């Protein structure tokens, strides 16, 4: 290809190894300076896993405290910091970066591009995560302790607490910048670097869902940045946006936050839909049922996600017309979501199915995410939500959509693509064991939380009334089973990287996107020396 000068050839730091195109340079500088989408994807995934363990330890501490009524292990203030930082770490540190890791690995390969459109910005997007994580976790060690407002950062508490809040605000700003740069990269790559013949409607669904997710991020990350900027000026520069004592309105923060926050929850689930849409057809050995309707359903969900934020605020005293609007708009989302569930089931219908670990996690996703969708519908009914808001029912809902939804899809995707990435097969027996331990542990931990919520147990409290004891004890046992089985996952991944049976190029006979049909396993450091032509 007779290209004009490429930025890569002209850039300043011309290390001896920078032009060795046979493979990566060795050592730390490989990772520090890498512009390779696969390296960056790998770093995102490991970062995400580290944050997952960090947030997971906080969760286990929370569950240990809640094993019995009364105060056993932690101070109430510290307990509140634990729930807050657990939420922030899991949302911004674990789930979102995991999906960006998948995007880095897969988007270029699935559209037949050599790399992302802006490889050096890609490097920046990743490395920004490190200071943000240090700020978040480091905030535990400053006077006053880490943010205790809940991950939603509601005033007035957030305005009154100490310097950890400033660290949290800075962390959120940095994470937002990282997400925005990542999204710009993903969109430009998908729109401009597709191989000849790869029309938009031929793209694998994972690419589609990320394209839409990236637009959501572009739209709402600046809003979150604005919200935390206003918190900062309320704290330090004499404004009173959210401070009632100065004429401000704390509920305005809730509106702004949830205008970001509800699209954000779809940012965390649409890429999961994409992963599951790749895996189910592969193991049903049938093409995805209703490809085009999947694309349109994903877009409708994304658009609707902007007009439902009020369902988080049914108890703040909006006008009845507002409550009704948000109730019906929220229920409307169930329609495109139902289309997707229907399509996945129809894909499996009469397929020749096998249940290797990726498929187990995908089917687990399908069953459990649907439960989370239904509890969401229950919460969307305004009068019902007025009794359930801020109870454990809400906690049960969002863990069904985020853990057995987003996280199960991430696990499914790791098992699915690990052979492609490493060239080795993982241990199917251990993978299945990991699935069943996760499935059982998760349900034991979170299903009882529906009962606790219905019985009126509030969320975010370190102590509770005696009648809630049994279900809390069961929940804690489940949480520990779930948590510790993730160490098995770590073991499986490391041993797959180290060795194992050689994975065939097309590991799964039913998988048909370019990384399976056009590239060897493991994928070479540089792929697509010539652009593949897609018929």
């Amino acid at each position, binding site marked *: 290809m007779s290209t004009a000068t490429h930025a890569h050839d002209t850039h300043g730091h011309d290390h001896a190894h920078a032009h060795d195109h046979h493979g990566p340079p060795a050592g730390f500088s490989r990772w520090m300076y890498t512009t390779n989408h696969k390296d960056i994807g790998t770093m995102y995934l490991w970062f995400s896993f580290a944050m997952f363990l960090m947030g997971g330890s906080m969760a286990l501490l929370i569950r240990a405290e809640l094993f019995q009524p009364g105060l056993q292990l932690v101070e109430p203030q510290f307990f509140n910091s634990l729930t807050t930082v657990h939420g922030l770490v899991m949302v911004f540190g674990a789930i979102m970066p995991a999906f960006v890791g998948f995007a880095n690995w897969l988007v270029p390969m699935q559209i037949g591009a050599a790399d992302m459109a802006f490889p050096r910005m890609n490097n920046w997007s990743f490395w920004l995560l490190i200071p943000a994580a240090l700020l978040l976790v480091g905030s535990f060690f400053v006077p006053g302790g880490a943010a205790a407002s809940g991950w939603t950062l509601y005033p007035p508490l957030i305005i009154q607490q100490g310097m950890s809040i400033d660290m949290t605000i800075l962390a959120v700003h940095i994470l937002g910048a990282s997400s925005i740069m990542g*999204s710009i990269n993903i*969109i*430009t790559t998908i729109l*401009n670097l597709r191989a000849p013949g790869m029309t938009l409607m031929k793209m694998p669904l994972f690419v589609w869902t990320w394209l839409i997710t990236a637009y959501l991020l572009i739209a709402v*990350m*600046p809003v979150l940045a*604005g919200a935390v*900027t206003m918190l900062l*000026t309320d704290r330090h520069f004499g404004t009173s946006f959210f401070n009632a004592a100065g004429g401000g309105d704390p509920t305005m923060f809730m509106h702004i936050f949830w205008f970001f926050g509800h699209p954000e929850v779809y940012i965390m689930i649409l890429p999961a839909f994409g992963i599951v849409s790749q895996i189910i057809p592969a193991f049903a050995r049938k093409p995805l049922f209703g490809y085009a309707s999947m694309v349109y359903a994903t877009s409708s969900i994304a658009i609707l996600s902007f007009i439902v934020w009020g369902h988080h605020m049914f108890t703040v005293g909006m006008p009845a017309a507002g409550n009704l609007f948000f109730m019906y708009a929220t229920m409307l989302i169930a329609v495109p979501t139902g289309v997707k569930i229907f399509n996945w089931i129809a894909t499996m219908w009469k397929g020749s199915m096998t249940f290797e670990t990726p498929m187990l996690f995908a089917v687990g996703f399908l069953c459990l995410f649907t439960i989370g969708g239904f509890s969401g519908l229950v919460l969307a009914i305004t009068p019902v939500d007025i009794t359930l808001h801020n109870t454990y029912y809400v906690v049960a809902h969002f863990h069904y959509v985020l853990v057995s939804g987003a996280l199960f899809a991430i696990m499914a995707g790791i098992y699915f693509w690990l052979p492609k990435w490493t060239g080795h097969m993982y241990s199917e027996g251990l993978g299945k064991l990991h699935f069943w331990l996760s499935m059982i542990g998760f349900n034991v931990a979170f299903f009882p939380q529906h009962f606790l919520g219905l019985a009126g147990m509030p969320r975010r409290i370190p102590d509770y009334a005696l009648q809630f004891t049994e279900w809390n004890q069961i929940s804690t046992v489940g949480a520990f089973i779930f948590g510790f089985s993730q160490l098995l996952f770590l073991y499986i991944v490391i041993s797959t990287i180290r060795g194992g049976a050689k994975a065939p190029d097309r590991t799964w006979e039913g998988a048909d996107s370019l990384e399976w049909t056009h590239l060897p396993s493991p994928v070479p450091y540089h792929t697509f020396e010539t652009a593949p032509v897609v018929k």
Partner: protein
Amino acid sequence: MAEPHKPTPQQRRNALLSAAVLAAMVLGIYAVFMLKVFSA
């Protein structure tokens, strides 16, 4: 084993253009929002 294929000049131009439009969207949303709440 050679270098990976590089985007054509046309693709690079389009990529830069897309990125500029997206960056303008981001900055625009943030700027309009901040100007609105911080003025008056």
